[in-house]
C-alpha cells in the first residue's frame, strides 16, 4: 500500500481547475458562542494562476489558506483539489496530497532548527520515500535555484530572515508541487528583502507554471499577482487592483 507513487495519478484528470471551493463554511466554538469565520465561500483557481488573498486582520485569510492547504477541513461545503474530493480522503491520502501537490511558505519560515538548510529542503522528499542521497541532491539543486547553494550546510539560526525564507521556498518547491500557498511570506522581512522574495515567487509562477496563492496585507504585493480576492465577513469577493 506504500508503494504507489502518486504524482502521475494526480495529473491524470482533465479538470482545468486546480482548486474548486463550493459553499465552504468554517466556524469555531468558543465557550458557548459560535464564531462563523467563513460563511459561504466559493472559489475557483485554474492551474498556473496567481492570486492574492486580502482582508482585514482576523477576517479569516489564514483559515481559508489552511483549508486550501489541507491543514484543516471545512465544516460545510465541498472542496475539490485537482479533481479530488478532499472530504473523501483518508488522513494518509491527505498527507500524500500535501506532500505531492502543495508547497507551503509560512510567515515565520518554520524551518526545523536542528536540521541544516539542505536537510530542511530534503525533508518533503524523504516523506515520499526517496533515498537520502537522491533527496539531498535534489535539495541542493533547489537551494542553488533560490541562490543559496553556498549555504546548504548552515543551520537556520545562522541565516538571515530573507535567506531563511528562501530556504523555506526551496523546501516548498523541491517536490515539484502544483500549488504554492504562502501566508504573509514577507511579513517578517524588510521591504527590499520582501521585494526579492516576491520576485522569486512570481518568477516561479511565470516560468514553471506553479499556481501561486499569497495571503497578504500589502497592496503593493497583491498588485503584482494576476488576481486578487478579499475575505470579508465570511464571504469572498473579487477585488480590483488596490
Amino acid at each position: 500500500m506504500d508503494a504507489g507513487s502518486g504524482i502521475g495519478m494526480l495529473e491524470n484528470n482533465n479538470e482545468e481547475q486546480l482548486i474548486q471551493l463550493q459553499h465552504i463554511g468554517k466556524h469555531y466554538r468558543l465557550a458557548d458562542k459560535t464564531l462563523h469565520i467563513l460563511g459561504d465561500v466559493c472559489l475557483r483557481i485554474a492551474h498556473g494562476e496567481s492570486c492574492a488573498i486580502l482582508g482585514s486582520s482576523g477576517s479569516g485569510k489564514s483559515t481559508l489558506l489552511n483549508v486550501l492547504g489541507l491543514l484543516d477541513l471545512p465544516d460545510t461545503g465541498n472542496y475539490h483539489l485537482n479533481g479530488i474530493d478532499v472530504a473523501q480522503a483518508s488522513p494518509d491520502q491527505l498527507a500524500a496530497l500535501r506532500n505531492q501537490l502543495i508547497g507551503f511558505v509560512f510567515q515565520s519560515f518554520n524551518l526545523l532548527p536542528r536540521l541544516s538548510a539542505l536537510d530542511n529542503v530534503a525533508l518533503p522528499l524523504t516523506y515520499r520515500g526517496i533515498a537520502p542521497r537522491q533527496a539531498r541532491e535534489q535539495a541542493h539543486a533547489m537551494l542553488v535555484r533560490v541562490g543559496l547553494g553556498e549555504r546548504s550546510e548552515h543551520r537556520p539560526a545562522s541565516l538571515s530572515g530573507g535567506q531563511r525564507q528562501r530556504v523555506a521556498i526551496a523546501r516548498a518547491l523541491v517536490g515539484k508541487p502544483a500549488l504554492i500557498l504562502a501566508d504573509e511570506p514577507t511579513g517578517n522581512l524588510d521591504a527590499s528583502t520582501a521585494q526579492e522574495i516576491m520576485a522569486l515567487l512570481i518568477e516561479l509562477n511565470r516560468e514553471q507554471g506553479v499556481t501561486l496563492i499569497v495571503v497578504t496585507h500589502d497592496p503593493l504585493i497583491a498588485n503584482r499577482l494576476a488576481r486578487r480576492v478579499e475575505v470579508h465577513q465570511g464571504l469572498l469577493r473579487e477585488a480590483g487592483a488596490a
Partner: protein
Amino acid sequence: MSLSMPLSSGPSAAQILLEALNSLRMLGRRSLLALLGIVMGSCSVVALLNIGGNAAAQSIAIFRNLGSDTLVLQLPPQPTGLDGLPLRLSVETLGRQTPAVASLSPVMTYGAAAIFNGRVGNANIIGADPALFEAARLNIASGRSLSEFDRKEAYAVIGASLAQALSLPDDPLQPGDQLRLQSYQFRVVGILQEGAPGMLLPFNANETLFIPMEGMTRINPVPQISHVVARANSAEEVIQAGEQLRQTLAQRIAGDAPVTLIFAQQILEGMQQQTRTFTYLLAALGVVSLIGGGVGVMNVMLMNVSERRREIGVRLALGARRRDIRNLFLVEAVALTSVGALLGAVLGMAGGWGYAQLSGWAFFLAPGALPLGIGSTVLVGLFFGLHPAIAASRLQPVEALRDE
C-alpha cells in the same frame, strides 16, 4: 471525475534512526533520570538471568561430581563408644544394620607434612576404610586403590594436586614411590584423578593423602572418627539410608550429642533457597525499576512532544503521515531505552560475575541473559513510548502549527 488518491512511502529506517539519535542528544540531562531507572531495570534482569543460569549449572555440576546418592554423617567431637573408649566402628557390622546403604567408610582426619625426596607438602591425611573410594566416588588416575589386604600396610593413595605439589618436572611422584609422614615411610600405591572439590565431603580429595584407618595410630596417637561417608543404593533411598545410619551410629555413641546428616540434596536445596531469595529480590527490583524507568521515558517523551508541536505541524504540512510522526517519537523512545538497556546489561553481567565469585561458582554468560534482558527493557521503552508517540501522531496540522 478522477478520485485516484496518491500514496507516498515514508523515510527509510536508517534515516529515522539518525534523526532520533540526533534529537536524543538534545534531550540531554532530562533523559538521564529516566535512563537511571532503565539502567537499573536492565541490570537487574540481566543479572537475574545470569545468576539463575549459573546456579542451575552449578547444581548440575554438584550432581555430576558427587551423585545425589552420597551422604555424610558428622559425628560429635571426640566420640566415645559405649565401652567408654574412643569410638571404633566395624564397616561390616554397620553395613549389615543399614540395608539401604551400599557402601560406607568412617573417616579420620589429621594434618601433617608429607615429605618426598626432600620436598615438603602440607597434606590433609584421611584414615579410612577401602570402601571410601567407592562411597565418595574417588577415581584412580594411575596405580591402584587401597584394598582390604592393605589394612595393615603403610600404603597411601594421594590426591592429584598434592602429588603435583610434591613432584618436579624431572622427578614426578609415581605409584611405588616412598613418602615420609613424620617418622614413617608410606608407599604411594595410587594417584587420584583431579576432581572438582566436593561441597559435601569433609575433605578436598585433591589435597589429601588417604591411608588405611588402621595406620592412623602411627602418626596420630589418639585418632578419632569425625565423619562417616556413605552411598545409598540409589538416589531415592538416600534419606532412608541416612536415617538408618544415623540411628545405628547414635546407638553406638555414648552420650546424646547429635549425629548430623548431610546429603547432596540438602546442599542443593540450601543453595537453591539462597539463590531463589536473591532472584526474587532481583526480579522485584527489575520490575519496579523498569516500570519507573518506563514512566520516566514516557514523561521525557511527552515533554519532548509538547516542545516540538510546531515541528510536528511543519512535518505534517510537508506530507508526513500519522505513522511517520508516531515512528519518529517511538524510535526516539526506543533509542533512549536502548542506551539504558546496554549500560544496564554491562552492569548486570558484572553483578552476575560478582555473585558467582562470592558463591564460589564458575561464571559463564547464561545464553538467554543478554537478549532477554535487553529485549525486555527495549519492549518496556516501546510500551511506554507508545502513548506519547500516538498522542503526537493524533495532532491536527492546524493545531500543531498554531502553537507558538
